[in-house]
């Protein structure tokens, strides 16, 4: 069973058990939730700013086809489900200031390469 299928298929009980076993307090802080909408051929918002030290939860949703969300130079890459099929979530710690580029990583049409944006982690 792959990691993805394990997470997809994992029941609520299994997921919660994981929390019980490894982390009495879960995250030390609640994540900052940022909703991003993908649509041929834009991300909205396309420029995201967060403070250093924030735990960021990106909730990625599509208004049409599958898109990808890849943060260049990191291992973060998610496929955003098609319209009406839920959302993808990326959680990370923004603890190194700088500007990160993200882009669509799933060919979505003639203007696919225009789908880019930035995450700025400020002090």
């Amino acid at each position, binding site marked *: 069973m792959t*990691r993805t299928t*394990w*997470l*997809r298929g994992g*029941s*609520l*009980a*299994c*997921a*919660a*058990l*994981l*929390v*019980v*076993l*490894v982390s009495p307090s*879960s*995250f030390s802080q609640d994540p900052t939730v940022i909703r991003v*909408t993908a649509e*041929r*051929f*834009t991300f*909205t*918002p*396309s*420029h995201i700013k967060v403070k250093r030290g924030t735990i960021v939860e990106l909730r990625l949703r*599509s208004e*049409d*086809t599958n898109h990808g969300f890849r943060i*260049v*130079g990191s*291992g*973060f890459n998610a*496929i955003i489900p*098609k*319209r*009406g099929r*839920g959302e*993808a*979530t*990326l*959680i990370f*710690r*923004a603890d*190194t200031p*700088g*500007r*990160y*580029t993200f882009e669509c990583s799933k*060919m*979505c*049409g*003639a*203007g*696919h*390469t*225009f789908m*880019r*944006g*930035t995450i700025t982690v400020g002090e």
Partner: protein
Amino acid sequence: MRRRIAVLVAISIVLLVGGPVSGQTPDPPATQSPVASPGQTRIEELERRVRELETRLRELEAAATKPLAPPPAPREPAPAQQMPPSLGPPTSVEESSTVSRTGPISGYMDFHLNKPEHEDAQLDFHRFVLLFNHSFSDRLRFVGELELEHAFVSGLEASGEVELEQAYLDFKVKPELNFRAGMVLAPVGIINERHEPPSFHGVERPFVDTFIIPTTWFDAGVGVHGTVGAGWQYRAYLMAPLDATRITAEEGLHEATQKGFASNVRNVAHTGRLEYVGVPGLNLGTSFWRGKTGFNFRRVDSRVGLFEFDGRYRAGRFAARGEFAQVFIDGAADLNDFLQRTAGVSPNIARQMRGFYVEPSIRPLPWIRHDVAAFVRYENFDTQFKMPEGVLPLKQFDRAAWVFGGSYFPDPDVVFKIDYSIIRNRSSLFRSVDSLNIGLGWWF
């Protein structure tokens, strides 16, 4: 947070009372084994699961990617980790990856049935398009779009076409500035850069996006593009110009593009587009084109200018889009004179052409599983909006159309379309032909 705590409490209780660990694995039936009692079996089972979960956790911590929640299920708290992976120090695009990657082939298809009034119906595999992409590195990428129109190609005029609509290299510097060179799409209007069948209503593309803006408008070009500020996108290209000898009174600019077929670039055209996409659901754009056009007859100084603006908006079940485009042809009188002398017939090219449309749509059945949309589009387009001095416009080219119909999406990437198109013109002699259109389109 509160929900998480509740879940923790629930699970702790489950553990304490020794209930089943997961709904997916019911208890084994009680056995008479003298070796292990049911309680011991359960403890062993729990220990095994704890070990399994610890392994999984280590895998998760090692992985930088946080996988997704299951798509259609109601939101559950994401499986949490003690600390989520860090975004890590930003690397420059150049440093990040120099590994070549070829993406899977994508594409779209467009299969139509057209039944013009008083004529036989026609089945037409209108478009078969394949898209390819290859990243040489994170900084350098190739995209190609190859289209077969009308399914069959031979040397005859009346058959289909194979078109290389896009084949460019993108050199990514930063989000604000990227360079592009090759065969590019003119960044004009809604449809030209956004023409996948599920992304617009109606079996055929709007008339304005056919006669006033000659979609699919592509040619050899070079330029820059990027995103700036909070929600602005731009592109600015130098492209091969339009060919004045292919502008017609009836179809406007439809056939005037050189399509990268040994495109004459004695003079290049300038084109650009600015879009605002900073508000979810709203997309506003404006674009222009300007370039000399009479390279086939050097003594005639003629230029085509095009100005366009458009908007799209979506809120809940409602959506609307609209577009306005106006074409200016400098030296139209000289072009007509020259072509009359050489070909014997004046093409009657206008000094100005104009077109606009508005298209509201609704998804009237939000409770059914698949999307269904109904739309109506009003279009007004005139390929002889203003004629050179002393020439009267022909009224049959001043046209309006009502197109109404629906789209059914068994999948967000598959659409079944039906519409009826009523076209009227201002001439009392020539009647435009209405048509019933049915289409099947898909993106993959």
